[in-house]
């Protein structure tokens, strides 16, 4: 297999920090953590050469559980932080992660522009269609008739956000969907996403068993997309517009060159930088 590594130098659990996750028992994010560690192990990534930046929310606790460099950023702002990091340190493997509320609502604008900029990094959004950390409110990807939140009695009646379509229209260079119900399959998608140049977006279905217990059924609903990845945006658009949200796999692999500005040293000594802050 193309992506197989004959001999990983670190086992998946060696990428874990030792801090025990505090997600609810049954949360899909545990499997996403597992998939990320498996992907890093298969790619032989050195922990000191990887950075994971997150926003705010249950899934955004990920950096604490890994022994790679991590930054738990401001709500919705994982992508600008990750963009700045990658642009200034192109040698690093940069991952950004968060949930659907963080990524598509609070950080929705950053999402579009990160896709457009096409900086070489991978954005993993763990989508459970709910704000779990604040006890279960409708998020941008929630179905319009979900009425279990007291904030939206009768449902939101609002058309949900289609992240893959938005990603394609905005210029993401790699678009895939994976599921926490299949961490091994998700690991493969992540390896492909990290290796692909430019902005890679991985839509990760990750059930919230506490506030959306019905999402346990996702396990029976997900299936492999019966298509090969395309690099033709028109074909991808048609594919994504007819997608039912449960097809897994890589759906689009563009060939746009990644954005990486030339780095110029503007200061020779730290003292010059400090001068800029003198009042």
């Amino acid at each position, binding site marked *: *297999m193309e*992506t*197989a*590594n*004959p*001999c*990983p130098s670190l086992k998946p*659990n060696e990428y874990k920090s030792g801090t*025990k*996750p*505090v*997600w*609810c*028992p*049954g*949360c*899909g994010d*545990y*499997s996403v953590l597992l998939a990320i560690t*498996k992907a890093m192990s*298969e790619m032989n990534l050195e922990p000191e050469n990887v950075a994971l930046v997150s926003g*705010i929310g*249950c899934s955004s606790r990920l950096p604490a559980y890994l022994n790679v460099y991590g930054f738990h950023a401001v709500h919705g702002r994982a992508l600008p932080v990750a963009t700045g990091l990658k642009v200034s340190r192109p040698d690093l493997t940069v991952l950004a992660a968060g949930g659907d509320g963080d990524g598509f609502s609070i950080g929705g604008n950053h999402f579009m522009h990160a896709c457009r900029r096409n900086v070489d990094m991978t954005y993993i959004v763990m989508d459970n269609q709910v704000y*779990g*950390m*604040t*006890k*279960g409110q409708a998020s941008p990807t929630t179905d319009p008739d979900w009425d279990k939140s007291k904030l939206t009695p009768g449902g939101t009646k609002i058309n949900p956000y289609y992240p893959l379509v938005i990603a394609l229209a905005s210029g993401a260079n790699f678009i895939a969907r994976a599921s*926490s*119900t*299949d*961490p*091994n*399959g998700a*690991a*493969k998608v992540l390896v492909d996403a990290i290796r692909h140049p430019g902005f890679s977006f991985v839509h990760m279905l990750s*059930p919230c*068993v*506490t*506030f959306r217990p019905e999402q*346990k059924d996702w*396990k029976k609903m997900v299936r492999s997309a019966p298509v090969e990845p395309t690099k033709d945006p028109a074909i991808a658009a048609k594919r994504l517009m007819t997608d039912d949200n449960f097809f897994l796999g890589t759906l689009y692999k563009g060939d746009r060159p990644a954005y990486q500005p030339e780095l110029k040293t503007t200061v020779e000594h730290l003292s010059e930088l400090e001068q800029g802050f003198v009042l």
Partner: protein
Amino acid sequence: MTAPRISSKVELLARTLTMLSETVERYDLFADQMDVVNNPEAAELFRWLENKQSDRTRVVQKLSEGLTLPHIPPWDYNWDDAINTEVPGHSSAHYMMTPYHTLTLAMDVEQSAADLFQQIEQGATAPEVQKLAHSFAREASDFRDYLKQKRAEHPVPEAGWDEDEDPPLLLE
């Protein structure tokens, strides 16, 4: 889903070791989770299960001594994570789960392991693979029966066991 056709003893050992070690890690994680949500009965049972699986892992490690086991990428474990392997699915856990649920989860794990090894045995052509898969299947089956006996010591949960008027709030 069908089990993979396994052609050599080292491949079977490599796959079995990965499955067992992941199960140990998963039970450890479940135990920690139950500690966090103040469910000591489930936590204690998960730790007991973790120890049992660790014992089995050591047995398979012993069988693997002196052999070079192949590395198998995760995505080549072409069986479903929680249906056909020993690794219990995360979604099987619940913060209010009772000992009955905990043991049911573990029984499902053993049943799926027994089924898997049985399929491997049936699909294998090498006698040493058949023999080893047969012994693994039997061991899983025996342990499932033991867990069933143990589960009978606990009451069957009543309907609504998972209703919670004050669901958890994850704090930053």
